[in-house]
């Protein structure tokens, strides 16, 4: 469809000062999503890794999630830089819908499991509730990050919702 001069990608990457093919350049939202996913995985790994040694004390590993507070640093605005355009906002909106839909399914499933494990007249331990809270939070952040990265990996989505 295009003439030969239009097909050259590498010269354009060099002109833009990037060492990588232009398709591999990540935007701020991608970087933040990848960072959030790494933090969630690290937190889960910390808790699971400490559990054989500390038992219930391993729940302190959820403190690793505090690093999520650094994700806004990816959205520091530089002069003339567009942080999030229509495509970024659409991807974020779809990721949020998916994340909270999955959370809702997990929440309903956990309530059903609580009924099975503890019975109708049983009492759910507070520690279980706290762990469920942290796991739910991690589920939302993790699914949101994965959905964001997956959509960017496919080249984005259409503007029409």
């Amino acid at each position, binding site marked *: *469809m295009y003439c030969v001069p239009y097909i050259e990608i590498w010269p354009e990457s060099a002109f833009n000062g990037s060492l990588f093919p232009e398709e591999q350049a990540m935007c701020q939202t991608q970087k933040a999503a990848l960072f959030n996913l790494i933090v969630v995985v690290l937190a889960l790994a910390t808790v699971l890794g400490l559990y054989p040694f500390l038992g219930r004390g391993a729940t302190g590993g959820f403190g690793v999630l505090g690093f999520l507070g650094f994700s806004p640093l990816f959205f520091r605005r530089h002069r003339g830089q567009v942080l999030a355009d*229509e*495509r970024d906002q659409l991807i974020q909106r779809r990721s949020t819908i998916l994340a909270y839909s999955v959370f809702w399914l997990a929440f309903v499933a956990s309530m059903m499991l609580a009924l099975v494990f503890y019975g109708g007249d049983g009492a759910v331990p507070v520690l279980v509730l706290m762990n469920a809270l942290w796991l739910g939070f991690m589920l939302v952040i993790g699914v949101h990050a994965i959905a964001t990265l997956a959509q960017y990996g496919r080249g984005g989505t259409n503007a029409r919702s």
Partner: protein
Amino acid sequence: MRDRSELTNRIREHRFHNGEMTQEQLAQRVGVTRQTIIALESGKYVPSLLLGFKLASTFGVKVEEVFQYNGTSTAP
């Protein structure tokens, strides 16, 4: 019935004809990120109407000269 429309564009060609504009320059002019321009040119993203008009206005042409509708919409 499912819409089998297909949208192609000539953004890269118009960039070349407009002083060999880079993707970054075009992105700044229309207010999007360079990744969005990349996705547009590779046909992986269909822009909003507003962005389509902004792109055409930047190139000084009509929208139809930037985007081409190649499919056929099926009647319900």
